[in-house]
């Protein structure tokens, strides 16, 4: 209960920190421009000849514009870096200061990550303007219901990202560092999430593999939902799976944290 009461202050102070680190965040944004590079690549391909997707969908340059600009926006809004924070704090022993406070550390990581959202919204605004003025606009859904589902899917996508970060970060309490595990996770994320290539362009076996992994539910499903890749009827079962992953990772993160924190050695000092 006191965690909930403290949440507005945690968010406000996290936002103040985000403003201090604004230059760092801009550099991070530059590091996430891969969808824009893929956009240039795929639109060039589509201009030569339309690209046929597995599900019979034809990808024009306009549909690639819509897809990759939404990918960029979704990536900004579902990001988390808790795994690196936890690794750093476990190695330095500074996790001790977090553990001394009467608030669950996962809540404080969550507030710290969410506090960056206003800045990320600002970063996405120019992309939204470009999207509205581009041929990509006609490939976006006009249905408010679909956009409401999109917002819902963003929450699920963020939860998958955040709790996967917490679970992998908590592994650093068992092994000396879990940063490399995060690197492996990210490599799989880039391939299977739809971040670099739409899932629709995957070979059939890779596409069915992506259905069973969490990554598509972080980026692919929210993006496909508003860019015509999924109908509402197709989207509901996927959203159900997305929330299944989110809750499963939440349970995994809590369990790993609970067990791992018993092994914390609070080194230094």
């Amino acid at each position: 209960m006191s965690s909930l009461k403290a949440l507005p202050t945690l968010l406000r102070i996290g936002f103040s920190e985000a403003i201090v680190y604004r230059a760092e965040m801009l550099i991070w944004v530059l590091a996430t421009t891969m969808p824009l590079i893929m956009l240039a690549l795929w639109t060039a391909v589509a201009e030569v000849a339309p690209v046929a997707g597995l599900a019979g969908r034809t990808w024009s340059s306009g549909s690639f514009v819509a897809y990759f600009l939404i990918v960029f926006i979704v990536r900004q809004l579902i990001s988390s870096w808790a795994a690196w924070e936890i690794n750093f704090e476990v190695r330095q022993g500074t996790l001790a200061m977090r553990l001394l406070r009467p608030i669950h550390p996962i809540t404080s990581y969550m507030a710290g990550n969410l506090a960056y959202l206003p800045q990320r919204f600002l970063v996405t605004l120019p992309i939204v303007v470009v999207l509205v003025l581009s041929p990509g606009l006609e490939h976006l859904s006009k249905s408010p219901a679909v956009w409401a589902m999109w917002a819902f899917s963003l929450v699920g996508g963020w939860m998958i990202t955040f709790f996967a970060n917490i679970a992998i970060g908590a592994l650093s309490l068992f092994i000396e560092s879990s940063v490399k595990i995060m690197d492996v996770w990210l490599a799989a994320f880039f391939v299977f999430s739809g971040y670099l290539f739409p899932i629709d362009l995957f070979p059939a076996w890779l596409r069915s593999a992506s259905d069973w992994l969490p990554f598509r539910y972080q980026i692919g499903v929210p993006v496909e939902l508003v860019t015509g890749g999924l109908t509402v009827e197709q989207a509901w079962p996927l959203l159900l799976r997305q929330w299944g992953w989110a809750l499963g990772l939440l349970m995994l993160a809590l369990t790993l944290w609970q067990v791992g924190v018993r092994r914390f050695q609070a080194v230094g000092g």
Partner: protein
Amino acid sequence: MIRIRGLTKHYRVHKRPPGLGAAIRSVFHREYTLVKAVDGLDFDVARGERVGFLGPNGAGKTTTLKMLSGLLHPTSGELSVDGHLPQSRETAFLKKIMLVMGQKQQLLWDLPPAETFELNRAIYDVPKDEFRKRLDELISLLEIGDQIGKPTRQLSLGERMKCELAAALVHGPRVLFLDEPTIGLDVSMQVVMRDFIRRYTEQFGATLLLTSHYMDDVAALCPRVVVIDKGQLSFDGKLEALVQKVRPEKRLTLRFSAPVAKERVAELGTVVRHDAAESVIQIPHDSVNGAVGRALAELPVVDLNVENPPLEEVMSELFGRSRAARAEGESAS
């Protein structure tokens, strides 16, 4: 308030010699050693008591404080702080205690300390009026009014430590675990911190367990000391009694109106320092009266002072003995 029985904390530590070969071997085969950081510790601390927790480096002091504050899970033994099991880290427990580590900080590095105070107010759920009143007191006692609005990274070490202490006390903890709170501070700042800690514990009836390598901290704050070595209790009692135990002598300082030969002074006790005008001698505790009488009768004494040996010296001797015993033990094994 604090009860410790048979407390142990053992670590498995990966050990390898330096060099590339050893690094490669350690990929396939790791050697571990068992470190007994705390090894069967027993002691109690009453409510409102101020206790100095002393020991040489690596004795297990910080490990014990970390177990008492719930950061570490003991390997075995019983531990209770105001009826709470620390490692359960219940909210009620965390609201009662605070661990301040001189080498770790809770202040937000890039924001002014005022933001950390506000964050702690929210996290510890301190009512706003109470928070304002307590913060004003802390600001006035620690004289940090000019600092709390500057980013933490721009504060000096002393200013930061004072703000760190204010952040730690803003929720009014009743049990303080202070681990080297004055480390790196200059002498005047150490005095300010000591005075403040004493006043806080008296005002709130707070219990204090303090580790410090500055013996002035211990002498000024702690009537009782607990000394541990190799994770085991080696002394528990009054500071005065510890001094008696380690150095059962007193220091007699004599100032002369005329030069006195060292040999004459040596008849009274062991000469620690001597020059023509002043001499410092060490004498057994029960011979003080006789030595003072003889000095006044036989020497041209104009001033005389009897005191315990400096605490730093006592501790240095105590810890030196412990190091020697440890080295002996290691060479025997």
